[in-house]
């Protein structure tokens, strides 16, 4: 069996008597374009936080490319190739866009510990950052502090930082959240152009975006996987319509 890019086995999380994740067996195939959807309170955020290491599961295992990372901390998971974006922009707001991206690249390259040569003379870092910004159409903003960018562009910086880490698995937590609809097309365009060897799990409320982007969809309801399938299967599944789509469109 080919190792999954990311896999969970019987993952559980409960806060006291409240169970927010129950026996989640989830598999993200290498190079996947996979979406995780579910109504509010379904436990999507808890699930993502367990994947990234922000909260520890009560039981179960998490495997990244076959390695057990259940006990690894956030930073160690990132170094193993698990990148993420945040639902609420989590950026270095007063720093220029270039620095936002370069700080991540420097960590990946092991340059961040260096104490003597000036950062701006580490051209291997700044060049790579500029190139990445160019592919995302952010090159002209390289020297602009992030806080001076419109929100849609800030969301792109969020994605740029994650890509700078050259992740093998990328978790996109509502990449288009709060973005005006004319800009969300641009985000979808960029997501569509991401390297195909990155396995991507997207958590998103925007059904339009989900159905255009993902080739597999997992529906999470009340901490349990309700169903998993192709977009067509999900769209025609009566249980999904009942608990989720019906509610969302009703």
């Amino acid at each position, binding site marked *: 069996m080919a190792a999954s890019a990311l896999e969970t086995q019987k993952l559980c999380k409960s806060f006291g008597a409240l169970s927010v994740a129950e026996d989640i067996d989830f598999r993200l195939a290498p190079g996947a374009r996979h979406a995780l959807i579910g109504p509010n309170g379904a436990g999507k955020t808890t699930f993502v936080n367990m994947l990234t290491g922000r909260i520890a599961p009560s039981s179960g295992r998490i495997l990244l490319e076959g390695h057990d990372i259940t006990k690894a901390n*956030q*930073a160690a998971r990132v170094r193993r190739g698990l990148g993420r974006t945040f639902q609420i922009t989590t950026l270095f707001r*007063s720093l*220029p866009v270039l620095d936002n991206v370069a700080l991540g690249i420097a960590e990946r390259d092991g340059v961040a510990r260096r104490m003597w040569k*000036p*950062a701006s003379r580490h051209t291997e870092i700044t060049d790579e950052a500029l190139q990445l910004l160019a592919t995302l159409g952010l090159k002209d903003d390289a020297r602009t502090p992030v806080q001076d960018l419109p929100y849609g562009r800030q969301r792109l910086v969020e994605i740029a930082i994650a890509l700078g880490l050259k992740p093998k698995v990328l978790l996109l937590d509502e990449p288009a959240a709060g973005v005006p609809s004319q800009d969300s097309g641009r985000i979808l365009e960029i997501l569509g152009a991401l390297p195909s060897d990155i396995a991507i799990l997207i958590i998103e409320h925007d059904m339009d975006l989900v159905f255009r982007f993902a080739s597999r969809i997992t529906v999470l309801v009340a901490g349990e996987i309700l169903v998993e399938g192709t977009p067509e299967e999900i769209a025609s599944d009566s249980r999904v319509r009942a608990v989720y789509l019906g509610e969302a469109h009703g």
Partner: protein
Amino acid sequence: MSGYTSNPRIRWQESLPWILALGAFFLMPEYLSLGARILTYILWALSLDLILGYAGIITLGHSAFFGLGAYTAGILSARYGVTDPFLQLLAAAAAAALLGISTGAVILRTKALTLLMLTLAITSIVLEIANKASWLTGGADGLSGVTVAPILGLFKFDLFGRTAFLYCLVALFLGWLIVRRLIYSPFGAMLTGIRENTTRMHAVGAPVYWRLVLVYTISATMAGIAGALLTQVNQFVGLNVLGLEPSGDLLVMLILGGVGRLYGAFVGPVVYLIAQDYLAKQYPEYWYFGIGLLLIVVVLFARGGILGLIDKVRDKWLQALSRHRSSAKASAR
């Protein structure tokens, strides 16, 4: 002013502190002892700026390292007859580094108020030890009989503080060189990242905790050296180098000058200590009132400290100038 987009070249303004210091050396020979003291405080403030201004580590316990360095140098000289100034500095640096790494490893897992209280607790403990172990430290009477051999066997510490001033100036220059290098390096940029957004720093794979312990230890080492310099200049150590009060004074100095600007650590101690010296002579009972007033004015009207205020005034002036120019052009047309 750190980071991947900043220009690390030294600007002409950055030579001002050294020109002023050398000017003071030649023009104000009667103030060199005060000058040497100010220089040690600048070095100490610089070490605080590194952790507070750049890494965002909030502390009221930075006197623990300064005081430990001061006592290490003093005890070596007064109790064990080690009078070589460099040996004293080295021992003070090592002791402060050790205290920095051991306490940092414990307290840097916390943040905000918890961290503030823990740093305060540590310097209070060191103060109490220095107070109780009077057989070693002289206790509340302080430790006198500190002698320092001539530097490199050549330059004696003279009565007017000429040697002490230049000695401290060289030490500060080296300290400045190192801190400046550090903050422009990728390490410095990374520290700014931790200050700006720790969550994001974790999410790009940075071992935040270890990096904080490292910079805390570097800063502690510098503070220890600054403390040892003060002992060598004063040829005396008292309990007033430990505890909340000197930490608070230092914090006030740095805020006065401007936090996270490198040169705020230069401006703050100069203004504070000169004001203290002057006010304490003129109004021995009320001088703290003047300092308090100064701090209120700075915090209310100049959040970036004195340097921040200068920046603001310069920006306004430049804006007015360019407006004036463009309107002059418009009327010429």
